[in-house]
């Protein structure tokens, strides 16, 4: 894979640029090692990044627009996807990759749409809490990309890990439901920084909750100023149209 120019030198310098909290290391007085430091300078996730780049190229060659949908468990992601698929399929040939640690319950629900659905159970891959590029590559064996315009990946319900892994998508979307607390965006800033749009789902429940929609939206915009925020109810269909129009316009842009 990567060929590194190794530079071996005696390590006598000590890094002083620490901003450590309790869990990171304080500057060392001496190296515990007896002296040889070998420069590496490689991204830990480089293997994933390279595979994601290769997948992205395949998507481009086959003119497939890819959405990566992320959220915490129980935000209404699958219901939203069921409803969205039905409306998007009028214009695009859709396919879905759905990730779960186990069960095929979501795939069964989504297959009703008639779109090809590939279920990934990450318990085969060690029970991972996110979809990584190699898992997507495996799922693509089941899909004929020539017959797909819009591929939606329903990531594993988790607001932490999926944000760290590029899977070759064009746009990342985070779904937050109004039963989850207004402070989620500032508790999981990486997710909200990495995404291109946010959905505030289950708004049909608002009359029953003490939920401050404005605060939730302000928190999203504090972490990601200017990000589009769509207020939706997958159950009633309220607010779906602006969200779908956002998807359509980005998909058309890539497919034209």
């Amino acid at each position: 894979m990567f060929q590194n120019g190794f530079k071996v030198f005696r390590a006598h310098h000590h890094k002083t640029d620490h901003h450590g909290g309790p869990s990171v290391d304080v500057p060392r007085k001496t190296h515990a090692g007896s002296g040889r430091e070998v420069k590496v300078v490689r991204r830990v996730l480089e293997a994933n990044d390279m595979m994601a780049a290769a997948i992205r190229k395949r998507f481009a060659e086959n003119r497939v627009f890819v959405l990566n949908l992320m959220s915490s468990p129980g935000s209404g992601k699958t219901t939203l996807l069921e409803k969205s698929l039905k409306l998007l399929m009028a214009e695009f040939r859709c396919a879905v990759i759905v990730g779960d640690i186990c069960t095929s319950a979501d795939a069964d629900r989504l297959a009703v749409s008639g779109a090809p659905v590939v279920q990934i159970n990450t318990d085969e891959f060690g029970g991972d809490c996110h979809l990584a590029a190699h898992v997507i590559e495996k799922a693509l064996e089941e899909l004929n990309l020539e017959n797909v315009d819009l591929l939606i990946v329903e990531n594993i319900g988790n607001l932490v890990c999926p944000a760290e892994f590029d899977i070759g998508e064009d746009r990342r979307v985070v779904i937050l439901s109004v039963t989850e607390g207004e402070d989620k965006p500032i508790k999981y800033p990486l997710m909200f920084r990495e995404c291109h749009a946010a959905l505030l789902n289950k708004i049909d429940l608002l009359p029953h909750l003490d939920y401050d929609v404005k605060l939730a939206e302000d928190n999203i915009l504090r972490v990601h100023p200017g990000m589009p925020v769509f207020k939706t109810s997958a159950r009633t269909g309220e607010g779906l149209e602006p969200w779908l129009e956002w998807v359509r316009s980005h998909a058309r842009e890539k497919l034209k």
Partner: protein
Amino acid sequence: MHEMGIAMQIVEIAAASIPSDLTGSRIEIVNLKIGKLSAIVADSLRFCFEVATRDTPLEGSRLHITEVPVRAHCNACRNEWSIEAPDFTCPACRSGDIRLLSGRELDIESIELSEEES
């Protein structure tokens, strides 16, 4: 939550980084840079690293983690600052048109080898 996968990648990259003329050496320390915005828990990573290094050339080595602050550049007023709270608007002009300069790192900087042959 995905620290085990990360730890395994670190072991793979570090083991492959031992120069061919030093293959008898043991890795004592892996120097890692982690941006403060990364979704990595250092203590959890250390625990996973210990497990992941068993029966590898890295067994017994330790992770030395340097945390990298989240630095941002404002495209509107060219201000540069460190983001401490989850607020990504420019403190000088309140613009949201910003670019992150650092804070997303998850990089292996170097490995430190013992000199004695094992």
